[in-house]
């Protein structure tokens, strides 16, 4: 048994299987949370009957329904591109799970990459290529506008996101996500305190990256009839859907790791309590839960920005703020 768990390939397969299982499960939980929380925010009941109690099986039923639907590809569509776009979106969301540490050491992370956060930022942009492919190949003008909006959004928001992360990297002196969490334990405080500005910038940029309200212009159902999703049906639509919720999970996980201490128990250092490593996933899930709740809260409270207003906001506010944050952080780092 001991030797089995030390075999690299067996461990890798086990971890990948866990990730493959985690994506739909996290998607289902977050999706259900969104349905229920939004319902309560809007004086509704939300799903109630599916599964017997509180509609817990609503999203499973939805998923089964999507698989039963006919897989329609528009006659004018660019078939291969149209087919692979949703897969690319989902792959990008799944790949992000690879570097997220759920506990200390190598046991609870698929790969503890030295360039972990770099990898995460790079992979998260791949999803937008999938969105652009979907918009371009659908042979639909609304889809095209949606896809191009997504591309414009990517350019506007990738930069502030990277800039906000640099502040954390300067403090932690490492790009490995495990290392960043260890640095926060060493500091005795989550980085959200010294890097509050960066946290806000990162969170806003993450919302834009995920195309959630107030930045959901690529989908914008009231303008573009759901933009790049317009022509998708059945399980390909489900892939986008799942990708969206998986993205929420991963971005919340990255934000929690970078700024909220990741798997480290919140506030435990203050009381001098040592908590065994296996509680890491619980703490991380709690922090993810809080961040996801804020995302849902935002989504159901605010209207949508306009594309040009988003660009203005990104280039005139977030980028300068991010740059200033780096300068201040670097100066403080050198001084103290």
């Amino acid at each position, binding site marked *: 048994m001991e030797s089995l768990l030390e075999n690299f390939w067996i461990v890798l397969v086990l971890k990948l299987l866990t990730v493959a299982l985690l994506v739909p499960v996290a998607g289902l939980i977050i999706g259900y949370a969104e349905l229920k929380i*939004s319902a309560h925010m809007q004086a509704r009941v939300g799903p109630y009957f599916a599964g017997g109690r509180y509609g817990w099986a609503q999203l499973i039923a939805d998923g089964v329904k999507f698989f039963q639907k006919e897989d329609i590809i528009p006659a004018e569509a660019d078939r291969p591109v149209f087919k692979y776009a949703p897969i690319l979106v989902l792959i990008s969301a799944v790949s992000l799970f690879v570097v997220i540490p759920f506990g200390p050491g190598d046991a609870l992370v698929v790969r503890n990459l030295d360039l972990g956060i770099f990898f995460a930022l790079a992979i998260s942009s791949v999803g937008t290529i999938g969105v652009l492919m979907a918009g371009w190949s659908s042979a639909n003008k609304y889809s095209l506008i949606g896809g191009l909006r997504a591309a414009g959004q990517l350019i506007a928001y990738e930069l502030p996101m990277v800039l906000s992360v640099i502040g954390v990297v300067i403090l932690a002196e490492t790009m490995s996500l495990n290392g960043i969490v260890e640095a926060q334990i060493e500091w005795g405080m989550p980085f959200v305190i010294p890097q509050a500005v960066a946290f806000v910038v990162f969170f806003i940029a993450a919302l834009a990256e995920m195309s959630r*309200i107030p930045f959901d212009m690529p989908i914008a159902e009231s303008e573009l009839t759901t933009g790049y999703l317009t022509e998708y049906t059945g399980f390909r639509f489900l892939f986008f859907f799942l990708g969206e919720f998986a993205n929420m999970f991963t971005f919340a996980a990255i934000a929690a790791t970078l700024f909220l201490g990741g798997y480290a128990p919140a506030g435990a250092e203050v009381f001098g309590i040592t908590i065994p490593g296996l509680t890491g996933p619980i703490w991380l899930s709690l922090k993810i839960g809080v961040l996801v709740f804020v995302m849902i809260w935002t989504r159901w409270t605010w209207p*949508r920005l306009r594309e040009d207003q988003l660009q203005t906001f990104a280039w005139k506010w977030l980028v300068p703020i991010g740059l200033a944050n780096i300068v201040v952080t670097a100066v403080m780092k050198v001084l103290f």
Partner: protein
Amino acid sequence: MLDAQAMAQISETSVAVELETSDMTLNIGPQHPSTHGVLRLVAKVDGEVITDVRPILGYMHRGYEKISEVRTYPQVIALINRIDWTSGYANEIPFVVAAERLMGIEVPERAQWIRLILTEMTRISAHLLFMGSFPLELGATTPLMFALRDRERVLDVLESVTGGRFHPNFNRIGGIKPAAGAGKEQKKLTQDLPAGFFTETEAAMDGVIASTDQLEKLLRKNEIFVARTKGIGVLPPEVALSYGVTGPNLRASGVPYDLRNETDYLPYDQVDFEIPVGTEGDSFDRWWVRLAEIRQSANIVKQAIQKVPSGPLQAKVPKIIKVPKGETYVRAEVPKGVMGYYLVSEGGQGPYRVKIRTASFSNLSMLPWILEGVIVPDLLAVMGSLDFVLGDVDR
């Protein structure tokens, strides 16, 4: 020698070659989630900027003017409920008043006051729907749910009197329909409204005012909402007047024109109310004016409850209604603006000709003007702020 046309053609061609861009024709609707029915817009877009827009109407044409010619007067009342389905009761008023004027009927005061109360409640329900649908076009779904929840209170009261939520069909020529189940004696007396109607209405109006506060809190100072609406879709008063825009859209441009103050189809002169007007004429003002109008209407209803006299509901009218020969035009302020019926009678059981002037049609007519130069996301936001109903446009 080249003539002017050829020159123009050449210069256009050279421009096209230099820039190598082309306009995209974007067909919006008739099946589009945000066109409030089946409006079709053919928009030429340069990137996301609209250079030209052409509304195509008629997908919802139901021929009500023509059908009215082969229906009796009570039947027409049921038809015109459906013109603007968000304010069915208010649509009935001008038609009924037109017929009554031709017949020379004096409507009992009690009936007039009840008509006033129900009209204002219809206005509240129509405006509350707008309070939900307009933010929805900007991507905010929560105001819709709040607005619908509170509109339901008003509709419940409306239903308790008329039996219908959207299409009350409650007016009769010469008065209003006695409540269902009222006995022969009671028809003539005061037991026409359901028990507890006044207290329920009063409570509903308090609820409506509380709900406007909530909606205001949710949106008025929301930065994104302000950024999406302030200075967007500005309609100057002179343009609004030249296109015949009426209702809240006109008042948002700063013109205090409200038929409730100017004609006497209902006893509005005996209640106190203000006419909220906007200053900029932009989308935000159109939203704000409607919100203020809900409060005014709720106040009107509260005052009217105190003033409803007792007495009969119906003037004496013959069993078979025949309107004497003649013609008249009656306008009324319905939630969307001014609605008018030009009624021509040849003395038969039904109208000889009815020309319906609807508010939404005139309000929509300036779409090409207001939409030129806006960008696609604003297109639907501006259209949403105009609050038209396609049934009201096409009839």
